[in-house]
């Protein structure tokens, strides 16, 4: 197992490498800044995997359940979702507008000996040539300026038989209390100002936007946090965090 990073020595500034390495460590430290993401990760990967296995007729107990599926991971950060999906056999393209996130992601994937195509780009700049079986927009739509346009671009990147997965935050009194006051101010999980409540989107609004891109919601679930057990679980309660899958309708 290679413990060294495979960065070619000739053209890379060592100070830059050190910076990205530190950033990568921050993302991948399960007890560090990204701890909440590490905690919720198994649950969301499980839901994505199970939905994909139903859709593409795969065995979720296989260690290569996503073999050969082309997956676009939008807003991939340092690859917390891309790497597990790649390990399950998928061909993953991870995109993120942040150059440093992409550098950190590449560094970690090399250390894990995983082949993942990371690109510092956005869906708008993806061009029209590539199509994916699975397009993932996890915790992204609450950060974009035009949700309709964003989802239209995502839809254009799907194969006709493909599936989209969107996870985001609902705009309710409860989500204001929990996601803004709770997560940013009380628990300090997230830096203040991470989320703007007014940009949160209700499941109905999301379904409407998807519909305009000729997609319909096929499955949906709420995701709830139980503080006492320190545990995330799936729930019918979609008042705060929720996920949906969408497919083309004819």
């Amino acid at each position: 197992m290679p413990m060294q990073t495979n960065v070619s020595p000739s053209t890379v500034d060592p100070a830059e490498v050190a910076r990205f390495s530190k950033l990568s460590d921050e993302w991948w430290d399960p007890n560090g800044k990204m701890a909440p993401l590490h905690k919720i990760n198994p649950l969301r990967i499980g839901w994505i995997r199970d939905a994909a296995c139903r859709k593409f007729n795969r065995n979720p107990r296989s260690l290569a359940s996503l073999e050969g599926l082309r997956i676009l991971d939008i807003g991939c950060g340092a690859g917390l979702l891309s790497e597990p999906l790649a390990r399950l056999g998928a061909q993953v393209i991870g995109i993120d507008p942040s150059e440093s996130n992409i550098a950190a992601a590449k560094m970690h994937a090399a250390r894990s000996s995983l082949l993942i195509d990371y690109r510092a780009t956005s869906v708008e700049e993806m061009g029209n040539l590539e199509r994916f079986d699975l397009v993932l927009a996890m915790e992204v739509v609450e950060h974009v300026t035009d949700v309709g346009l964003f989802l239209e671009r995502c839809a254009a990147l799907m194969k006709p038989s493909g599936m989209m997965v969107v996870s985001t935050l609902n705009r309710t009194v409860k989500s204001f209390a929990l996601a803004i006051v709770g997560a940013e101010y009380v628990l300090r999980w997230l830096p203040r100002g991470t989320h703007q409540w007014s940009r949160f989107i209700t499941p109905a609004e999301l379904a409407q936007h998807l519909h305009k891109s000729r997609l319909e919601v096929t499955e949906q679930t709420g995701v709830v946090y139980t503080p006492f057990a320190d545990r995330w679980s799936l729930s019918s309660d979609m008042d705060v965090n929720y996920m949906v899958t969408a497919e083309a309708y004819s």
Partner: protein
Amino acid sequence: MAEYQRIVIGGGGFAGLALALALRKGLGTAFEVVVADPSLATRPSSDPRASAIIAAGRNLFEVLGVWSVVAPHAQPIVDMIVTDSQLEDVMRPAFLTFAGDVTSSRGPTTSETDAPARPFAHMIENRFLIDALVNACVAQGVVLRTCAVTGFENHRDAIAVTLDDGETLEARLLVAADGGRSALRERAGIATNGWEYDQSGIVVTVSHERDHHGRAEEHFLPAGPFAILPLTGRRSSLVWTEARDEAERIVALPADDFRRELEQRFGLHLGELRAETTPRAFPLGYFVARSFIGDRLALVGDAAHVIHPIAGQGLNLGLKDVAALAEVLVDAVRLGLDPGQAPVLERYQRWRRFDTMAMGIATNGLNLLFSNRSALLRTVRDIGLGLVDRMPPVKNVLIKQAAGLSGEVPRLLRGESL
């Protein structure tokens, strides 16, 4: 793009070997599973002790494919009596009797339920089970190393495990299955909470003239519980508690004197007795590790906890660790996750640590309740046991609890594959 994947298990007892086998069954050839223990060089095993395997443990061994191999050596416990006696009592009235089948909902002996009735436990000599597990591990491609783990170092994405032949193995996870005095636990700096009892357990196998008919007996004598556990043939395994000094004195006695002490406690209902193994005294204690996990490290079995043998649950707690850890690790790998990462191991810890403490506290309470001479306490506990004996629903709950089939049961203990 294959990453090299490996899990190293330090310790080749029941827990380590069963875990290796479960991981191999769940993960296939994608992971290399290594068991390191110098005692693996001694084959066949010469362990003279015997263990009670409850129904849940049997389910696990069935899924792992070793039960059919050891079944001829397993004595079903079909009946169990509990008495509360003074040494000098001529008669020992039974306050609690269990006719012992685990059935789904009704009385313990009804046969018209959907699940076939099964004995709630079997007694088996350790050596048969260890040999069957080792052979199954070899057949399943588990890498057995006759080395001790001498050190480990965390490298963020892997743990580097050093063996005493000098080799270093990079692994995703190191499992400490190296027993109650776990060197790996100590090396990881994980402290334990617990205490020593002022009691030792004398372990000996005896043969007797008459058949035991699969009946287990537990006599609550003033010095502590005295358990007669049936083995195949006209033999029984004893777990005999005494104050520490007294235990040392008894095991050192010449054979005839030892037999007299034995008969005084055992009684003569099975005819003449003879010790088949050299009696040995083990100091009894209780502890639970303050954490069941560390950085890329998980503790299972006696390395994580040792409890009073009063209820015969020590091994079975360990098997529950094995089943839970195997399930957690296999689930994680099926999600493409690194099985040595903290969130994965935390699921194991949440699942097992509380359950273990509850069992530890319950067995400690039993021991305090029974190991004394107070007449008042004796009356209270006998009324309690007598009541339990007359209430079939309560008894069934106790039997299910004793069989390990209550609470959040891991898939392997329910007899399901991973």
